[in-house]
């Protein structure tokens, strides 16, 4: 469905969101809903991999998660995930990644409420 105006929170990458949803509110709501439904389990799996210290498993999980953030305009989080993934290829010690991982998690937890709020607007606008 084409809509006259779709506006996004300024903390989300609206240029990117416009490029993937092309002003289709239903597609955008679908993307946000799918993300909100799927990310907690995936994040949990990522955390488990980090705790067990398995760098390869951690890399695979962050690789899988990476594109999903962009679907909700968190392209900055996708970029952080990409940096972690690249660093995984250069180390066998998960501790080396701690600072990057903490930064990734903190950024994400700050932005999740923005995503939830945007989803709410998309379904009520």
């Amino acid at each position, binding site marked *: 469905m084409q809509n006259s105006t779709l506006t996004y929170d300024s903390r989300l990458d609206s240029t990117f969101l416009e490029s993937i949803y092309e002003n289709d509110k239903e597609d955008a709501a679908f*993307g946000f809903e799918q993300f909100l439904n799927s990310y907690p389990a995936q994040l949990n799996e990522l955390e488990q991999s980090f705790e067990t210290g398995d760098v390869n498993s951690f890399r695979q999980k962050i690789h899988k*998660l990476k594109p999903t953030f*962009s679907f909700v305009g968190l392209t900055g989080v996708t970029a952080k995930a990409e940096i972690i993934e690249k660093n995984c290829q250069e180390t066998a010690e998960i501790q080396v990644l701690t600072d990057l991982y903490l930064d990734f998690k903190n950024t994400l937890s700050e932005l999740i409420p923005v995503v939830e709020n945007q989803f709410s607007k998309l379904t009520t606008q």
Partner: protein
Amino acid sequence: MQLKVIIVEDEPLSRGFIERYCEKLGDLEIAGSFEDAESALEYLHKNEIDIIFLDVEMPGISGFQLLDQMMYMPKVILTTSKTDYAFDAFQYGVADYLKKPITFNRFQEALGKIKNSLNKEPQPQGNLTPDGNLKEIYIKSDGKLTRLSFQEILYIESVGDYVKYITATKNYMALSTLKAVEEKMEGNGFMKVHRSYIVNLHKIKDIQDNTLVIEGKVIPISRSYQSEVKSRINVV
């Protein structure tokens, strides 16, 4: 024309979007949606499809490894969050390469290319014979996938870690085992006659007790296969 597609994608959001886009286009039938390559392969060994949306990097078997194990080649659209696989994609002759997240416009463009190419190609006979048997196989040889129809294969010989496909015009070496080839070609007019040979039964010229001849090549028949060979050919 309704095209039969499958989606192989471990990331649920991307999978959901591809399914949604397929439904939006209306002329695609989603025959299956798989989160791992193993399940997709199992399906593909029993079913024929037109298009596969295939993620490259998945746990277990990767997208390219799946292509290596396929017995026929539908149109392939790779979906990936990296652009590093472009060369491999070219080598495998994929129809298109979509970077995630995939936009509907880009998705439509990829499908448009495939529909155009299908319209230009002679109408396919399909990869199956009317009685449901495969009639061609793709082998990975010299870094590319080569299609061989069963009709042109004379015999297959085991050579160390490789198998050699012999046709009237050319031989092809592929990294595989005779056992794997036997499983794929079973029931398609091929038969293992010796630990090192699978032969196309339609190409045999002469048979003696423990040898057969195809295009001048004498191939041994193991004692354990001799009675089965005789039962598989029409002796009058």
